[in-house]
């Protein structure tokens, strides 16, 4: 994976599509145990990125990732804006001008997920996007050299999101509902999963 940033417009489009397609389901999840704004939050971010996707494809990965992080941070708002923003900014920061091989990506992604954990003061098992991000990061780190890793990423992401269904939320808005938070997949975990899968699909198709 030494893909160039020329991929970015396609990646952004794919992410936009999957959020659009699953908008009603995602909204229902955030309405059930959150406040229902997760999709509109994400869509503000996606719009901001779409508006500059050509410009992004002219940058190197480090600059592009940092720009994406800033755009997400300032357009999305809410919990997910600061967390997804942190994820991308930390990826850019940790890339340190290296070419983006799978191995480098795995290391950088793990560091970015660590930054998200710190920002959210959250761990795996608290019914958040981290229940998708952490297992995916671990899988990548352990299997960066295996050819089928990308397919495994998708399965891991889906399993991670599904696992949140029976969890008790202890972070984010859903935590206020206590036991009532069980029975629904976490909206942020689901959106993470959807976006990761969409990205993998673009990468494996090219």
């Amino acid at each position, binding site marked *: 994976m030494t893909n160039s940033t020329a991929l970015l417009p396609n990646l952004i489009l794919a992410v936009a599509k999957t959020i659009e397609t699953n908008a009603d389901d995602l909204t229902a999840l955030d309405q059930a145990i959150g406040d229902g704004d997760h999709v509109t939050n994400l869509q503000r971010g996606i719009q901001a990125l779409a508006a500059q996707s050509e410009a992004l494809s002219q940058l190197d990965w480090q600059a592009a990732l940092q720009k994406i992080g800033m755009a997400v941070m300032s357009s999305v708002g809410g*919990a997910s804006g600061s967390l997804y923003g942190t994820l991308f900014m930390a990826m850019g920061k940790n890339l340190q001008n290296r070419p983006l091989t799978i191995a480098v990506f795995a290391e950088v992604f793990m560091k970015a997920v660590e930054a998200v954990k710190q920002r959210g003061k959250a761990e795996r098992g608290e019914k958040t996007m981290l229940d998708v991000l952490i297992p995916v990061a671990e899988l990548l780190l352990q299997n960066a050299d295996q050819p089928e890793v990308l397919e495994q990423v998708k399965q891991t992401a889906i399993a991670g999101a599904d696992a949140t269904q029976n969890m008790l939320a202890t972070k984010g808005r859903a935590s206020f509902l206590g036991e009532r938070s069980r029975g629904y997949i976490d909206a942020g975990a689901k959106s993470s999963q959807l976006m990761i899968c969409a990205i993998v699909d673009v990468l494996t198709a090219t």
Partner: protein
Amino acid sequence: MKKFIDNVDTILNESLQGFALAHSDLIEFNAEPRYVRRKMPKQPGKVVLVSGGGSGHEPLHTGFVGAGMLDAACPGQIFTSPSPDQMLAAAQSVQQGAGVLFIVKNYAGDVMNFEIASEMLDFPNASVLVSDDVSLPKSHSTGRRGVAGTLIIEKIVGAAAENGAGLAECKALGDRINLVTASMGIALTSCTVPALGKPTFAIDDNEMEIGVGIHGERGQETVPLKSASEIVERMATVIDEDLQPKKGQEILLHINGFGATPLLELYLLYDLAATFWQKRGLRITRSLVGNFTTSLDMAGASITLTLLDEELVRLWDAPVHAAALRWGC
């Protein structure tokens, strides 16, 4: 969805434009990034207060920008935390060299975005985290939510800052009020977020949600609709057990409507809550009744109690001149 609205994507800025026009003597609205600030800046050398949070709680926070209260407020999208760039721009535009105090309601989104802003800011700043919602246990994994008690902190710390209190002093005062302030809310109906166009949750005609926050979310429990007396008894008991006020304690009693509950009912709740605490020997020194921290068009209300002392009363009484709170001038 029955609302006065042209476009769900632009209603927030259009409404803020109207707000700015209606109160052009008091405040100024910056659209990009979005913040509202005092028109007459504070004197140099004074601490400034910046708050913010999701919109839909009006008049909180924009209605409290003005002399003696907030210097700026950052409205996020409806029920969505604002972003760090708003907070940075607002803080930079109002700061007077003595630092900025952020008043932050304790929600993951608000906390994280204000944290990021704080880290990026290149001058002294501190934050007061408001967590007055006692429908959640003190031990809650994220801490308690910030609800209607926020305006009490904004008003009192705003007065202190106006009087020249330093940053550490303002923060300590805010933290202190937060510790002696407790709120509890009940929803009779859901609200409707414009972007979604339908009620956030379904609730039967003979049910209510007890222990709700201010984002139209479900509460701790769905229970059968009760009489006003029973509702107040239940809410006030939780608050009382949390604060454990002593006999003779002076209090500020604040009844807050969530948006669609008439004053007629809010004053009934006030009457019942006042009686509850008078019977326990407390002295109701100050009162505030009305729609101040709303959840759009939700029917419901919250009760907030703050234990007062001489300093807090004096600062509460100090002049304030904001769009939604004004006295002494």
